[in-house]
């Protein structure tokens, strides 16, 4: 176990962290009439949601089993995060724009919601190509100039599923994808249009009884994304889902289910933002990935939920269960995450490497500033022979924040010739933040080769001065150095999003030195 903690001194950063409120540019709210059940959580809430979604009986039953189970469970306390007791009866569990949950065409989506997504840089009109935040096109060109090998960044199509509070409001490029045989639908649509597929796979990776938050999600999940890529198909474009919490006092519980059949491939990205609100909001999602023989999923997350203000007021509690099941031989999955938002992040995207020769990768950047807390990492469960995994985690802590990497590499008795490489680097900005690295290893097969490297360093004054002598402002210098520190992980993101993620890294560290 490697552990490094730094807590001392007086924080210059907090004094100087000016108006971090203004730095969260996605903090606007959109004025949309909404329809909600009464506050609180009981069987009727579950029935209300299921009825709203016009779900089949089996799914309502599935939810109720989860709900009853949840009532018997206790909230986990082992993570290195600290928050007041959540009152689960004091929240809404479902919210949809009053104009109705689903829109037949993009033209039916209320203009204020379209505008909301537009403000976020997410075009829902198919003619547009997603290139993220403003100026990204130019930066992408620049990035290409720098690394000529990364060809054709701009101009590629990205299909988007946009989830606003509890419902999916639009899914683009559906027809084009259908031609390739790819199913890309909101979860509710998938339940209606492909009930057998959903029923076959739902809960097979993260069972309803898995953990407190996953079980809660199973009872009250609202919407999310469903993807099915049939045998041998390489999905012709990037798929992405944007989650947006708008409504106050509302939890968001989305469910993502992605299945890639033998020999298939998909690259998928999710992005998340929420308005600034003084109260904390709960986000408890479940993501299940199923990868068959010779298939591959690249799953990327750019998480920018509202982190709370500089004094730690408000912000999203992001308690998420993500798991990939490499069922087939030579199956491959990679999780790439850029976690910059949320008041608290509790998240361990995991890989079950069941198929022989299957591979799991986890690339993570977790940035915490002000009072944010992140406890994140991964689990690599090696069950098959010759399975390999690779973990690269970059934690950046600033202000009074705390960041923990918690990882498990587990090798089953029968899993011969397993290899794992783990590298955890922590960067501290200022004297009042903390970084912790907690790697667990369980190796029950002596042929396993497991490597672990960990470093903890402080942002270098020498480098900072060098950059400033060259003309960079303090904030630009910090952003540049931190982006450099994260480079290995940023490179793993699809080009379109790498540029956006780089900017996010800069924005989330504003006011962190001084």
């Amino acid at each position, binding site marked *: 176990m490697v552990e490094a903690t730094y807590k001392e001194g007086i924080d210059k950063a907090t004094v100087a962290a000016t108006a971090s409120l203004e730095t969260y540019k996605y903090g606007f709210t959109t004025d949309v009439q909404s329809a909600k059940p009464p506050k609180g959580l009981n069987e009727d809430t579950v029935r209300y949601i299921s009825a709203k979604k016009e779900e089949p009986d089996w799914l309502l039953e599935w939810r109720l089993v989860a709900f009853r189970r949840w009532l018997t469970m206790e909230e986990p306390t082992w993570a290195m995060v600290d928050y007041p007791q959540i009152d689960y009866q004091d929240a809404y569990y479902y919210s949809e724009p009053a104009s109705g949950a689903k829109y037949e065409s993009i033209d039916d989506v209320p203009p204020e919601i379209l505008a909301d997504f537009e403000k976020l840089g997410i075009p829902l009109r198919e003619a547009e190509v997603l290139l993220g935040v403003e100026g990204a096109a130019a930066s992408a*060109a*620049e990035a290409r*100039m*720098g*690394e000529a090998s990364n060809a054709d960044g701009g101009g590629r199509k990205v299909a988007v599923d946009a989830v606003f509070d509890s419902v999916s409001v639009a899914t683009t490029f559906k027809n084009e994808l259908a031609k390739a045989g790819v199913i890309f639908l909101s979860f509710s649509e998938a339940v209606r249009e492909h009930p057998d597929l959903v029923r076959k796979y739902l809960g097979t990776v993260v069972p309803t009884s898995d953990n407190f938050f996953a079980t809660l999600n199973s009872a009250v999940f609202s919407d999310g994304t469903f993807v099915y890529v049939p045998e041998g198909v390489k999905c012709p474009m990037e798929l992405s889902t944007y989650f947006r919490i708008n409504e106050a006092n509302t939890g968001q519980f989305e469910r993502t289910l992605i299945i890639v059949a033998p020999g298939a491939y998909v690259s998928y990205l999710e992005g998340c933002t929420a308005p600034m609100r003084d109260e904390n909001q709960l986000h408890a999602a479940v993501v299940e990935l199923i990868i068959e023989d010779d298939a591959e999923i690249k799953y990327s997350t750019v998480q920018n939920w509202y982190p709370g203000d500089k004094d730690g007021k408000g912000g999203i509690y992001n308690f998420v269960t993500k798991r990939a099941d490499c069922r087939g031989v030579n199956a491959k999955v990679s999780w790439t995450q850029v976690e910059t938002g949320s008041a608290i992040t509790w998240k361990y995207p995991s890989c079950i490497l069941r198929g022989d020769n299957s591979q799991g990768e986890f690339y993570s950047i977790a940035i915490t500033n002000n009072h944010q807390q992140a406890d994140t990492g991964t689990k690599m469960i090696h069950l098959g022979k010759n399975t390999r995994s690779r973990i690269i985690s970059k934690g950046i802590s600033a202000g009074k924040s705390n960041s923990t990497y918690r990882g498990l590499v587990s090798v089953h008795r029968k899993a011969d010739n397993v290899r794992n490489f783990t590298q955890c680097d922590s960067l501290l900005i200022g004297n009042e933040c903390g970084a912790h690295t907690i790697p667990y290893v369980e190796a029950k097969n002596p042929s396993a080769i497991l490597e672990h490297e960990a470093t903890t360093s402080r942002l*270098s*004054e*020498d*480098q900072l*001065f*060098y*950059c*400033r*002598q*060259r*003309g*960079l*402002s*303090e904030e*630009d*210098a910090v952003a*540049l*150095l931190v*982006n*450099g*520190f*994260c*480079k*290995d992980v940023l490179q793993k993101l699809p080009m379109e999003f790498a540029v956006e993620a780089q900017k996010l890294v800069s924005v989330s560290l504003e006011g962190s030195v001084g």
Partner: protein
Amino acid sequence: MLKIENLHTTVGGHEILKGLSLDVPAGEVHAIMGPNGSGKSTLSYTVAGRDGYAASEGAVMLEGTNILGLAPDVRAAKGLFLSFQHPMEIPGVQTMTFIRTALNAQRRARGEAEVSAADFIRLIREKAKLVGLDDAKLKRPFNVGFSGGEKKRMEMLQLAIFEPRFAIMDETDSGLDIDALKMVGDVVNALRGPERGFLIITHYQRLLHYIKPDRVHVLAGGRIVKSGAAGLAAELEKSGYEQFIEAA
């Protein structure tokens, strides 16, 4: 151009600069020599505005304005350049990206237009040839794993690209081979002109064969203790600093 008056700097509780005065008029190149630990790098850090090297007394006038108290990047935008005795590595940031980001930050601060990606590539390729750095190096992370001499070349590359008003070169010649020494001379001589000034910190007169200084100063005990014409460098090389250490 750069006029330093009665500069006092305390570092880590010790007064290192003790009333240093120096005047480099526009168009001139001055050299500073002095024993190890006499405060030459401290002088360059104080002028460039490094944290922990704030002057307790005195003034540093760059083209008529006192730059003490300005942020280091503001001084850089005003045209002050420091070639570091020990240049930094910036992992994960490509050399081209680093230099272009810096150049455009300076230009923005001066209200000038940014240099486009295409123009920049042309510029950096041309200057890289001048300082003897190949294309492959420009694509690597900035200075990471570069040899000592390559890092000094990288400093000269930035000097050639930024074309600052005033450059302080802190032991740029240390660790350079003979060809590189000549290259440094070529870069500086090409930039020499009536609008520009240089302060060259060095231990040896060999660089001064290539760059003929207008004045040579001896820094000892935190002050300039002797100034003279170019010939002073050769004299020092023969006689050493002992006489000045006693004087100071």
